[in-house]
């Protein structure tokens, strides 16, 4: 252990602001990436299920449904 106490650890020998700012931003971004990836996957699966239900309702095979646009959100209403 390089520090004697928790306050010494947080102070980082006077460099606490720099160390925690750099680590904090990195940590937030990594967590944000994971949250985004999970949300994206959930939303896509939900979308697929909704399309499947719609296809069933219309009695179609579902294969005729338009593909999800690569420009997310924009051309969705087509």
């Amino acid at each position, binding site marked *: *252990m*390089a520090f004697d106490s928790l306050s010494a650890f947080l102070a980082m020998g006077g460099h606490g602001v720099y*160390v925690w700012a*750099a680590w904090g931003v990195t940590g937030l971004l*990594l967590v944000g*990436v994971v949250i985004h990836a999970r949300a994206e996957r959930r939303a*896509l*699966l939900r979308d*697929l299920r909704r399309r499947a239900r719609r296809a069933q309702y219309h009695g179609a095979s579902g294969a005729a449904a338009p593909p999800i646009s*690569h420009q997310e959100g924009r051309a969705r209403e087509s």
Partner: protein
Amino acid sequence: MWAFIHKLGSPKWFYGISARLSPWFWAAAVVLILVGSAWGLAFAPADYQQGNSFRIIYVHVPAAFLAQSIFVSMAVAGFIFMVWKIKIADMAAAMMAPLGAAMTFVALFSGAVWGVPTWGTWWMWDARLTSMLILLFLYFGVIALRGAFTSRDSASRAASVLAMVGVINIPIIKYSVDWWYTLHQPATFSVTSRPAMPLEMWAPLLIMVLGFYCFFIAVTLMRTRSEILRREASKRWVRELAEEVS
């Protein structure tokens, strides 16, 4: 060999194999990053010159490694897509770009924050800093270019070409510290010589670098699977899969 490549290029096969592989990469990423963080933040000795501000190295260097590796991966994927028309390569490249941009931002930000107590300035038009900033703009360019086309094929080809051309910036970043030695210090790690740091300083750095790479692989596998769901939404196996995993 060709049969294997064709199998790898099949979205359905890729979806299955990546689903089986990705838990291992997630687990490795979490363990390595947690161990590396605890070691680097609390147990590694303070630097005799920089004190504790040197602990920024444990996020700065892994992020900078990834920033460059992701761009190279994107360029390789773009090449594979252009030459062999393997769609999976393009899907992966599309999913890598935002993570690469995020990692470039982390490298620049942590470097700037580190620069204040160490160099007395958060920014200088040093060759390494400038070429990293160009890398960030290249990532923005690739992302914007992909969004600028209504046709997916045109978008993919344009993004692939920009990634393949932009990859020239990577050797410039790498050698910038040797060609124009102004502010940024030369490489911390090299293949040919032992690190100039004691083990208790570089071991956590190595662990963090490995952890970041596992994180990159895990995120890319996961997001590429999402991209398969998006692009192959009309395929029967994708529709069946959506029902199964509800």
